[in-house]
Structure formats: C-alpha cells, structure tokens
C-alpha cells in the first residue's frame, strides 16, 4: 500500500459509521418530536376534560372558579368558527414546533391567547331565561373592575382569584391591570350596563346578561362567534320548550300554556337577532314560569 492511501476497510467503516450515526440522530429527533407532540395532545385532551365540570354546574346562578397550574409554560391559542359551531384550541409547548390543535364543539370558551403556566378558569351559566349552558372563561391577565354594580362586585371578589378584583375607584387598580369600568370613562374596557354594551378601543359588543358581558370583557376576538353559537343553542332549546309547554299543559298544567306566545316571540326575536326583544321575552317567560304551579324549567 502506498503511503497516504487510506485502507479500504477504514473508508468503509467511516462511511457506514457515519450513516449509522446520521440515522441514530435522525430517528432520536423524530422520536423526541413525537413524544413532544404526544405531550401536547395529552395536555389538550386533559384541558378538555378539566373544562367539562365547568360546563355542567347544573345549578343556576352559581359560578365555579379554580386556579390551574399547567405542567409547564404553554402557548395557548383559541379560535372560533360559528359555521362549524366549534372552537379550536391549539397548544404549543416548544417554539418552532407544530402546535397540537383540538376542536371543541360542546363548550363556549372565552379566552385570550396566552403564553404562561398559571391561569384561572372560571365559569358562569348563561340564562335566557333558563340555563342555556355554562360559559367558561380562561383568565391569564390581571383585570380590575371599577364601579361595578354591587352584585357583580360581590360575585367577582367572591371568586378569590388573584387575576380579578373589583374596586370602587380607579386608584384601587394597579397600573398594569386591564381596567374595566362601569359608568366611568378613561379605562381599557367600558361597560354601559343600561345600554348593555361593552366598548373597547377596537369594537363595541352588545351583551344579554352578566355572563355574556364577562365574555365580551375577557375575549373580544371570539365573542361575536360564541354569542352566535349560544343564540343558535337557545333557538333549539326554545323549540323544545314550546313543545314541552304544550305537553304539560295537556296534562293539566294549564297556566304554563300562557308562556307559549312569549316562547314563540323569543324564537322570532332570535331569528331577527333583536337583543332587546330577546331579553324582554326572556323576562316575561321567567315571570310566567315563576308564577306557574308546575315549572317549565
């Protein structure tokens, strides 16, 4: 063998060794990626499971509130599609990787996108006039409600959330809080409780009750879509209630039959998207239901 000439065995070993190392690195990378994707998938499914008790409180006028600490800092995004009547949650644990997306069709989630470990989940029933469903709010920023009506103030402070406080004056808020004001201007979010609107610098959103008002405060991006989904659900429930009123009326609950014109009116107001009429019919149905010997809901 000439000097400087590489022996065939060495060359062969180098090429095959290189190929083996390359394949080992490639497959371990792939396996790691799969493991990371699996963790994201498990976490998204777990979140969906965690949300279930928040959306089936059963009792009306009761809120449920819990702090949630995610296993690690998480990039969470949520979008809404009213045509598909669904929301898509995306979870990304590591940057530059593909997020895991999961479609949620049986919940109404109000959340801003966030990238953190600790969040607060809180839910409240949407009642118009019966419990349509429970709205889930995921809070990841500090909110300060100023000059809110006494019952809202009591409810918000009763949540014992480190993210939410209700105070009488704006000086009670921290400088980096998102300030939500009732009948006071100069805040990030302004609520006109009489006109039933939530105003931000970007848009004005009509609301129907306190639960939808909070939805507009906590998530302006998905609010319109979720409201549309909720009203579609209320439309279905109204159709069921009309039939139910007829059935129990025929069994001797004659006074419940008086709710039928209002139920039909509610269905019409839902089709016309007339929010003031929806509220008015709901109040009228609620009053008749309370006065009836056998309740419709």
């Amino acid at each position, binding site marked *: 063998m000439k000097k400087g000439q590489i022996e*065939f*065995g060495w060359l*062969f*070993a180098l090429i*095959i060794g290189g190929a*083996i190392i390359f394949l080992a690195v490639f*497959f371990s990378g792939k*396996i790691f990626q*799969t*493991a990371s994707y*699996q963790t994201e998938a*498990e976490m998204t*499914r*777990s979140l*969906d*499971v965690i949300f*279930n*008790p928040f*959306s*089936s*409180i*059963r009792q*009306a006028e009761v809120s449920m509130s819990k702090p949630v600490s995610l296993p690690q800092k998480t990039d969470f995004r949520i979008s809404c599609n009213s045509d598909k*009547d*669904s929301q898509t949650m995306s979870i990304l644990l590591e940057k530059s990787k593909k997020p895991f997306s999961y*479609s*949620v*069709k*049986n919940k109404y989630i109000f959340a801003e996108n966030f990238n953190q470990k600790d969040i607060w989940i809180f839910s409240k029933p949407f009642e118009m006039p*019966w*419990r*349509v*469903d429970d709205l889930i709010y995921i809070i990841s920023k500090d909110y300060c409600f100023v000059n809110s009506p006494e019952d809202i103030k009591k409810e918000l402070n009763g949540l014992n959330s480190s993210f939410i406080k209700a105070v009488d004056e704006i000086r009670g808020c921290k400088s980096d809080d998102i300030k939500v004001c009732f009948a006071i201007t100069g805040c990030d979010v302004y609520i006109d409780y009489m006109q039933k609107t939530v105003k931000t610098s970007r848009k004005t959103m009509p609301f129907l009750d306190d639960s939808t008002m909070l939805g507009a405060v906590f998530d302006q991006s998905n609010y319109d879509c979720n409201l549309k989904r909720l009203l579609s659900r209320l439309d*279905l*429930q109204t*159709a*069921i209630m009309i*039939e*139910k009123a007829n*059935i*129990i009326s025929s*069994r*001797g*609950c004659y006074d419940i039959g008086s709710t039928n014109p209002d139920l039909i009116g509610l269905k019409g107001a839902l089709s016309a998207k007339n929010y003031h009429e929806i509220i008015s019919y709901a109040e009228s149905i609620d009053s008749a239901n309370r006065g009836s*010997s*056998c*309740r*419709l*809901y």
Partner: protein
Amino acid sequence: MKGQMKIQEMAFVLLALILLAVIAFIFFIRLQAGNIERSADLAKQQTAISLLDKIAALPEISCAKGEICIDEDKALMVERAYSSRLENQFQGLKNVKIARIYPAGPDIVLYNTGSANQTYSTFVSLCQQQASDWKCGIALLEAGF
C-alpha cells in the same frame, strides 16, 4: 483473497449490527405505541366519565330547576326531532342512549352514528312531569365510544 475475506467479515458484522438495531427499534416503537394507546384509553375514559355528567345536565334533556333527573318528554323530543342539532354536544361519542330499567320500556336513543367499541354508563332518574309532581323511574344513561 485475504482482503475479500475481511470485507465479507465486516459485511456480516454490519448486517448483524443493523439487525440488532432494527430489533431494538421495533421493540422501542412497540413500547411507545403501547404507552400512546394507554394514554389514549385513559383520555377516552376520563372524557366519558366527565361527559356522562355533562350530558345528564344538558338543558335540552334535564328536568326543571331543582330536580336532578332526565326529563322523559324532552328526551323523547330530542330522539324524535332534535338529535342532529344536538350532535355537537355529544362530541367524541358514537352513541348516547337512555336504557329504561324500572319500569321496563324501549330505549330512548339520543344520538347514534354507529356501534361503539366501549360503553360507559351511569344510573339516572328518568322522570315525566305531571300536573302536580314528577313520575320517576330508573334508567341507565349510556355513552358509547
């Protein structure tokens, strides 16, 4: 001749090495797949248990405020006319039905898109509203995946 022998020797060693690596890789993949299947089953089980409670509380089929039961009249309405409009509420499930236990009677099928691999169930009160009170029976709320 000696060189050729050496190449053959090396090729056999390499082949054995690759075979060993492939076997180890298959073993690892099977282990990983087993883990994924287990966590998928656990996720399904958790979803089923939490969904059963959510379904029982759906305003479309539940009794009036204060009564923890399923309203038979509403459930029959859903079975007859509103099942497709309610399908989003049964996300992830293949079928949902209420099987009457006492008094015996036909099942109320709330949702059906095919036969399920696994079924989870919970006891519920199935009640019918009368003029002055509720007439109740016992039923099983079944959710199939």
